[in-house]
């Protein structure tokens, strides 16, 4: 019954999306005002119903209803509850329903909260959002029905990929999806504003909190995903320049560019066409990313829910939406004046360079990701990986960070070089100090990590400069947000540089009682013992790490074996043990048993890494998200909206 109800709710929600679209179009073409009044409630109802359908799908997973094909294929009654719930979106259909739910809820949220846009622009925006969701409703209902029943229910399900049976699954995909799909709001705003030709500071101010909001989630999602891959994949890598990572980075870059350009439009009424263009690009990149990940077009370490046949459907949808938005943009571009001009050495000037660099990085990441596909079609098989990205994107990113040093210190319209220079000595001193320290004491450090840490030093000091000489209590929230986010970039950069430059690795076949030296630690391999988890068995190793100061820590890495369920093959995974210290992390993995030269079989492969400052990478990512959140709180003016609403309600109450 639950499955049928869920499907029915999806159909009703799809019908409401059609209603919003049709009513919106008729209203905008001069139809009766009542039609326009339908759009808001229809959008809200669509959001609520889709969310309810998603809730029902979770209920099916929780109840382990094996008569539903999706549950039977991806769940198992023995699985711990948290993974039953999270398993809902650990597969193609469930993740697409999550995608659609966020798309619909975004529309509902615009309908409830957006009060600053002109009524017709708002309706055009909601109609655009409805048009987006109709395509994805069609995709879900016609080719990926999550509620499909099996003719005969199997006794139990096939279980969830053990690699995904981790708390990371509960947080990473939903967070990333909120970010990905949240950008649809910016897309719809852009389309709405193009339709009604209302592009200016008011439109930019209305759009800004939504952009910030989805970008916060994108940042958190990417940061969490990076940490998850780091501890789960068992080799300690935190960024692989893998296609799936790249397609999550691309919308993030577009979002970063957009939230800076929208600041220029909101404050100075400049860069109007560019802001609209970026808003279109942002969600387009989300769709491209979804398509690449879902279609299995590229091989990746992180693809867990792939279906090539549905790729074509997504490709068509994508072509319609991106093509439609770009056509609209081309038709209206003439009507969108670029806005006010400004000097190169000004806040706007630095933000334009920021946008130039961000979009160049975006383009080259996309180029590197798609190039192997195109090359293969032309008969060349090539791989594009870390060496390419580090060499090409690395320098651009460092230049971008230097622009970030200058930008916040410049004033709008125009500024002069001497004034900028006079604010920089401390930052330059910090950078030089880092550089000299690294050259003198750092040993052999690669050029990119060396420059990275130097720039991190400069940015760390310079990012705080906008607070100097200010009354900290009166500093507006968005300024605090900017400072925290830029400081986060420095922290992240320092972590990346230190980890790449000073990582220590030890791979050994150790017998119980052996001591392994790594970094400042002496690690004793005590032994192994079998343990049983809720749905796996494991060999648990015990390592005692003693630091140079004499403190001991016990680490317990596991090699797990998940039994094959309902005819599937068994799977092994490694649970790394992590020891977080102020100076970095010790990362331990227990590998296969090996036979020593003496023929004894009690040795185990043990992999150890000392990763200096590695956790700064994710701390930095977190700080960037916190900064964006502060900025959003400042910009959304939630308090002001709430007050205005209360005043209006009071007014209505006394109206005759």
């Amino acid at each position, binding site marked *: 019954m639950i499955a049928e109800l869920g499907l029915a709710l999806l159909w009703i929600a799809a019908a409401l999306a059609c209603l919003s679209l049709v009513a919106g179009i008729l209203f905008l073409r001069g139809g009766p005002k009542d039609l326009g009044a339908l759009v808001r409630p229809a959008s809200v109802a669509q959001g609520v119903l889709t969310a309810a359908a998603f809730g029902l799908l979770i209920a099916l997973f929780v109840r382990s209803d094996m008569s539903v094909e999706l549950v039977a294929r991806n769940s198992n009654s023995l699985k711990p509850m948290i993974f039953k719930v999270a398993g809902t979106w650990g597969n193609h259909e469930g993740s697409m329903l999550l995608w659609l739910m966020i798309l619909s809820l975004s529309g509902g949220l615009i309908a409830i909260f957006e009060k600053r846009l002109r009524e017709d622009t708002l309706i055009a925006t909601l109609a655009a959002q409805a048009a987006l969701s109709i395509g994805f409703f069609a995709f879900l209902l016609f080719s990926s029905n999550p509620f499909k029943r099996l003719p005969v229910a199997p006794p139990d399900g096939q279980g969830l*990929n053990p*690699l995904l049976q981790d708390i990371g699954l509960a947080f990473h995909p939903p967070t990333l999806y909120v970010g990905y799909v949240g950008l649809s709001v910016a897309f719809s705003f852009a389309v709405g504003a193009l339709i009604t030709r209302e592009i200016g500071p008011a439109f930019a101010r209305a759009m800004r909190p939504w952009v910030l909001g989805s970008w916060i989630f994108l940042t958190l999602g990417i940061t969490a995903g990076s940490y998850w891959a780091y501890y*789960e*994949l*068992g*080799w300690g*890598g935190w960024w692989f320049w*893998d296609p799936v990572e790249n397609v999550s980075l691309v919308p993030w870059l577009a979002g970063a560019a957009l939230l800076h350009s929208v600041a220029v439009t909101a404050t100075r009424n*400049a*860069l109007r066409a560019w802001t609209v263009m970026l808003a279109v690009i942002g969600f387009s990149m989300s769709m491209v990313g979804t398509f690449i990940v879902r279609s*299995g077009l*590229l*091989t990746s*370490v992180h*693809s*867990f829910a*792939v*279906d*090539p046949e549905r790729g074509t459907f997504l490709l068509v949808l994508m072509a319609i939406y991106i093509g439609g938005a770009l056509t609209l943009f081309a038709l209206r571009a003439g009507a969108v*004046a*670029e*806005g006010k*001009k*400004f000097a190169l050495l000004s806040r*706007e*000037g630095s933000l*334009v360079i920021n*946008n*130039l660099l961000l*979009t*160049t990085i975006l383009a*080259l990441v996309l*180029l590197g990701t798609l*190039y192997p596909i195109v*090359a293969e079609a*032309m008969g*060349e*098989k*090539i*791989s*594009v*990986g*870390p*060496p*390419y990205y580090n060499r090409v994107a690395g320098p*651009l990113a460092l230049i971008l960070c230097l622009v970030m040093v200058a930008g916040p210190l410049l004033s709008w319209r125009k500024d002069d070089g001497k004034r900028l220079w006079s604010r920089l000595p401390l930052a330059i001193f910090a950078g030089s100090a880092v550089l000299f320290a690294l050259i003198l004491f750092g040993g052999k450090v690669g050029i990119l990590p060396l420059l990275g840490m130097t720039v991190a030093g400069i940015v760390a000091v310079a990012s705080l400069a906008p607070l100097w000489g200010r009354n900290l209590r009166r500093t507006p929230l968005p300024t605090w947000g900017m400072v925290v986010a830029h400081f986060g970039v420095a922290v992240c950069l320092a972590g990346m540089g230190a980890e790449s430059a000073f990582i220590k690795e*030890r*791979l050994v*076949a150790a017998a119980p009682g052996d001591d392994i030296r790594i970094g400042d630690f002496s690690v004793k391999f005590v032994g192994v013992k079998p343990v049983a988890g809720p749905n796996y068995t494991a060999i648990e190793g015990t390592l005692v790490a003693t630091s140079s100061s004499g403190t001991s820590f016990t680490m317990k890495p596991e090699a797990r074996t998940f039994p*094959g369920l309902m005819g*599937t*093959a*068994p*799977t*092994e*995974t*490694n649970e790394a043990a992590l020891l977080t210290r102020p100076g970095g992390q010790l990362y331990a*993995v227990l*590998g296969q048993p*090996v036979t020593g030269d003496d023929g004894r079989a009690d040795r185990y492969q043990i992999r150890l890494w000392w990763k200096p400052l590695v956790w700064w990478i994710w701390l930095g990512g977190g700080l960037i998200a916190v900064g964006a959140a502060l900025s959003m709180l400042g910009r959304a003016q939630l308090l002001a909206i709430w007050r205005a609403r209360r005043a209006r309600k009071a007014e209505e109450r006394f109206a005759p």
Partner: protein
Amino acid sequence: MSKTCSTSSRSPAKAGVQGGKVRRGRKVALDPRFRGGAWLLAALLLAATGMFSSLSLAQDRLPPAPYAYQQLKDPAQEARAKALMEELRCLVCQGQSIADSDAPLAGDMRHEVRSKIAAGESPGEIKTWLVARYGNWVSYDPPFDAATAFLWLGPLLFLAIGGWLAFGRFRRGASDGEDAA
């Protein structure tokens, strides 16, 4: 060792030798419609007929080759080997370098790389040797040639076009051009 090696779970031969034990089996890998299948098959054939034939058949029965999970004694040599391994693609995995894969083939390639470095070969020579056998696919660092010219020059082109477009936004001279279109 959680990264998947798809072939080990796809190849009946390997699965058979491993007694049905699948390393890191993954849904993608088990999906027969998976598009990469053709190329994985090609890689398998390559592995079966190519220079790894003896190694890859042997490694399923025998413990991993010594240098698959063991570092070189000389730190300088190990650093060179490590740098090279990070640039080499694990041919049967999904987007991983041989430096961070648990696939048996990746282990064999690590052993190959470390042995050759220990024998005094330069990373460049080893890479040339591998590329000659497996094509450019094996290297994450694409060479600069006719096929990859746009890959390497594209970013410069983007920067140039973007810079040219952005330059038009700046006010030239002292005139305060408000609202120029």
